[in-house]
């Protein structure tokens, strides 16, 4: 078994105006967190509450967060980042503006590293998806240099697109690269757990870390809550539960009791903006799992 993950991971949706229930609330959060100190303050509150893993998208603003943690390493001696890549809107907007191939060309590393450019050009020309995928992962990982990233996640929009297109070998390529280049465990965020597990099995990605919506009301659990409960109970994988509160549709204690009642859920990721909510959620999880 690989190194266990922490029981509680801190998410970042709240920092970037993502809220699945209210656009107004999302906008209010985007306003509140438009400056870095507001984000760092919340991360500090979470850290003091005992949450030392930040599961974050590779949004360009995370680079500033990384700078802060590099510059203050002594203050956070055990801090971990779980990067989730890519920040999809960056790619989607580039594809809309430039078309797919030109967007790739622009997003590949262009900072004077002759090798990377050469490799990028070659990979594009030869349609070598593995080399391209490695370059894109490396480009996203740049902001985390010098920080500890023991798990690296593929965002659900990419995971589920690869799954849907049947380009299954890409999962294997991602897992191999993340392990060999970063010494990290690959993680997969998905909205389609049962299907993804079959494909990862077939690709030989053993005991994968899979992060998905797991909540009492079955919100965005494709195949239904019962199917999820069954795979959690019977399949070999390391589940990370997200959206456990279903964007606030479920009360925290009720929501967390449901998740804690499922066997073998290794971690719970949640995002919150207030000290009260952070401490309350962390406290309930600690209490439920110490029982």
């Amino acid at each position, binding site marked *: 078994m690989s190194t266990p993950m922490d029981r509680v991971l801190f998410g970042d949706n709240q920092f970037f105006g993502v809220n699945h229930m209210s656009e107004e609330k999302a906008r209010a959060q985007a306003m509140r967190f438009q400056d870095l100190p507001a984000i760092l303050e919340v991360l500090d509150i979470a850290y003091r509450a005992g949450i030392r893993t930040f599961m974050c998208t590779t949004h360009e603003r995370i680079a500033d967060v990384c700078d802060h943690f590099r510059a203050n390493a002594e203050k956070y001696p055990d801090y971990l980042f779980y990067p989730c890549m890519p920040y999809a809107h960056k790619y989607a907007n580039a594809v809309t503006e430039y078309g797919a191939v030109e967007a790739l060309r622009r997003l590949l590393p262009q900072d004077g590293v002759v090798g990377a450019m050469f490799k990028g050009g070659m990979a594009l020309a030869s349609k070598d998806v593995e080399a391209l995928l490695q370059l894109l992962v490396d480009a996203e990982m740049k902001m985390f240099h010098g920080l500890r990233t023991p798990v690296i996640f593929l965002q659900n929009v990419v995971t*589920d697109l690869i799954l849907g297109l049947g380009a299954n070998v890409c999962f294997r390529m991602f897992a191999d690269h993340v392990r060999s280049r970063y010494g990290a465990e690959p993680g997969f965020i998905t909205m*389609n757990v049962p299907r993804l597990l079959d494909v990862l099995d077939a690709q030989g990605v053993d005991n994968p870390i899979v992060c998905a919506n797991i909540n009492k009301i079955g919100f*965005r659990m494709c195949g239904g809550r019962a199917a999820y409960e069954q795979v959690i109970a019977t399949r070999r994988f390391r589940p990370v539960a997200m959206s456990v509160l279903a964007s606030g549709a479920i009360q925290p204690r009720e929501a967390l009791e449901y998740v804690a009642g499922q066997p073998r859920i290794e971690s719970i990721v949640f995002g919150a903006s207030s000290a009260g909510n952070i401490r309350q959620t962390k406290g309930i999880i600690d209490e439920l799992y110490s029982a």
Partner: protein
Amino acid sequence: MIRVAIVGLGKMGLSHLAILRMHPQLQVVGACDTAGYLMDVLAKYTDTPCFADFDRMLDAARPEALLVATPSRSHAGLVEKALERGIHVFCEKPFVLDIKDGERLAALAERKGCVTQVGYHYRFVGAFQEAARVVRSGALGQVHHVRAEAYGPVVLRPKGGTWRSARTEGGGALYDYACHAIDLVNFVAGAPVSTSGVVRHSIFSADVDDEIYCTFHYANGGSGQLCVNWSDESFRKMSTRISIWGTNGRVTADRQECQVYLREGREESRESGKGWTVRYTTDLTDNVWYYLRGEEYSAQIDYWVKSIREKRIDGESSFRSALETDRFVAMITGEAPQPAASPDHAGRVRKRGLLSRLAGRS
């Protein structure tokens, strides 16, 4: 299993291909795009049969159903070829750029008994469905005003080289953004009969509109406003909202929530609650069998498949329905004639309507 093919593998096309492949009642027998690079990669890494030529794909793959996700200009020609072979069609929005094409194709589809649908996915978003339900329930009383808005960050500087920036290809915020808002108006509040006060501006684009505003008018004197701007970076992604005012209250919906305010509860409808009722996407959304970017993208394909199986040719967002949206667009561009009633006239009708309501109604 229904044999399905897809033509056009841009951003929407790839997403559609993934959804089609995952559908338990569909077998993807062909995918076609003129971008050789992409087709080579797909052929190399997936099991999807790839074609560079559309006619060859129809001949060789013999699909029973076709999804068209090419640039808008090419929709009419591709759809026509498919319908002539009796193939059911799902076409990305906007349906066509010339309403004469749309009328011909809708008639052809009906003659051939083909199931048609256009990709207005907002019709499959729970919060918008809820808004439509509330309006149809009569809970708002007499509807007198509608506002549809769509904002987002697509064109943020003066450049861009894809078909979306070319007027002749059906690019621009009118076809890309406004169509969705217009279709939502038709879906939730019904199709208006005329437009006035049209403003179409470029903010950054050289060749197309980046913002569109207009007033629209209903036969019964009701009015509406359309506000669309795809050069607004303050929105993280496309954000669409519709509000409907009636004599008994208001409903406002976006992708996440549906807010209803009623002056009086109505016994005859489910909306018995006076004051605010807010329902959220977490409550209004049904799970789909496969999720990619939002339930609505999968739900609309599942609906199309059901229509094919049930031979439902007048389902949600059919060619006939999408033609109403194209007509609205054509009124904005001036390509479709406005009915005899001028905006002033419509205004007078509205005033009379309001007065008579105040004077005579219960």
